[in-house]
């Protein structure tokens, strides 16, 4: 059953689609090094870096596609990358 005119009534429902499986490389965050410049947060095309209750940035690997922009844009190398295990 499709909705009328294929209207989607559930906002943000792409979250059903775990794009984490796309990764070839995995970014790793070292919160100790992080200076909270917010670069990784704002530049992530997936919006999959979030601030947890402690004010630390975390990566939600369910969606991270492993583009490594965050790694590239971290001014203090708090982010690094490794090859994803398959």
């Amino acid at each position: 059953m499709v909705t009328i005119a294929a209207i989607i009534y559930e906002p943000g429902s792409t979250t059903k689609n775990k794009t984490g499986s796309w990764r070839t490389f995995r970014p790793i965050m070292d919160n100790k090094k992080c200076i909270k410049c917010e670069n990784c947060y704002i530049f992530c095309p997936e919006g999959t870096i979030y601030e947890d209750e402690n004010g630390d940035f975390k990566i939600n690997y369910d969606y991270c596609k492993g583009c490594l922009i965050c790694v590239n844009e971290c001014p203090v190398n708090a982010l690094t990358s490794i090859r994803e295990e398959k």
Partner: protein
Amino acid sequence: MEKTDIVTGTIAAAMAAKLSNVEVIAAYPITPQTHCVETLAKYVANGELDAEFVKVESEHSAMATCIGASATGVRTFTATASQGLALMHEMLYIASGMRLPIVMLNTNRALSAPINIWCDQQDSITERDTGWIQIYAEDNQETLDSVIQAFKIAEDEDVLLPVMVNIDGFILTHTVEPVVIPDEEKVREYLGVYEPKHAYLDPDKPITQGPVGVPECYMETRKDLNDAIEGSKEVIKRVNEEYYKLFNRKYGNGLVEGYNLENADTVLVSMGSVCGTIKYVINKLKEKGKNIGLLRIRTYRPFPKEDVVEMLKDANNVAVLDKNISLGFNMGALGIDVSSVLKNKKVCNYIVGLGGRDITPQNIEEIINHVEGAKDGETKWINLRE
């Protein structure tokens, strides 16, 4: 207060849009439609109608603007003709696919090339697959009534489809004749306010309209649409009855109108203003003792197959008059459609009145005489010059 005025078809349509309290109008001028939107612009300029009049830069944008407005949940109207309708083509499919109850006046006019501003119905006929309901009015009164009914039909929750009201360019658009103008309050009460449950762009309840219809869902949305327009037949009939009760006018059963069908061996089938001339000829011939029938198709889409079959069951000579030609089929579209449902009957097709060629009572008589001696499937062009 209800009153009678003597107005053109375009002005009757503008009055109907005003009575229907349209909220957003987006239209682009084109002959022979212009007086409709000019009249609406005047209403707005004089504060007689509190609507947003969007002076778009093309018909493509007119339809796009209507789509945007309708998808936000307001009552929307536009008017066009010919090249303008053709320029909207892509957007027509989108309006119906998005299930938006936009109402449009189309003033039938021939298509270029060569450019011709006069009447035929090629413009709207060629949009017959788009999922728009198409009503063809016979006179200015029906024009006004049909625009009002169009909103009622379009916005019906079982329909939710755009509706195109077609009137013959010049023949109706530029002819004044008496028209009963219903009471404004009464019309507004009848129609109510448009408050859609399915499509509205509202930050308080964010929905996504017009997404990618992947192969897993696309065909089902088309089937839905197909069922909605099929189902609209019942709604159109119902609205025709309701309207009759409230405003005392009805048009056949809403889908088709029969005229003198009883015992008519020869029946003409057509749409729009030419049906007046046909009735005129029928009346004349009746005086002379000859019985000819007319089946007027009022809604060409949804096509009233069942009514066509039923009402023509006793006819032996069916003459379909088309103000259009499906090039490469050597027939008009109505001729094809009628032939396809009248399987065991002689159906002939007459191409008439293209690009403003007048259709006279003599032409009608010629057709009647011809069909009686013709073979099934014949096509004849009427009133051609050498």
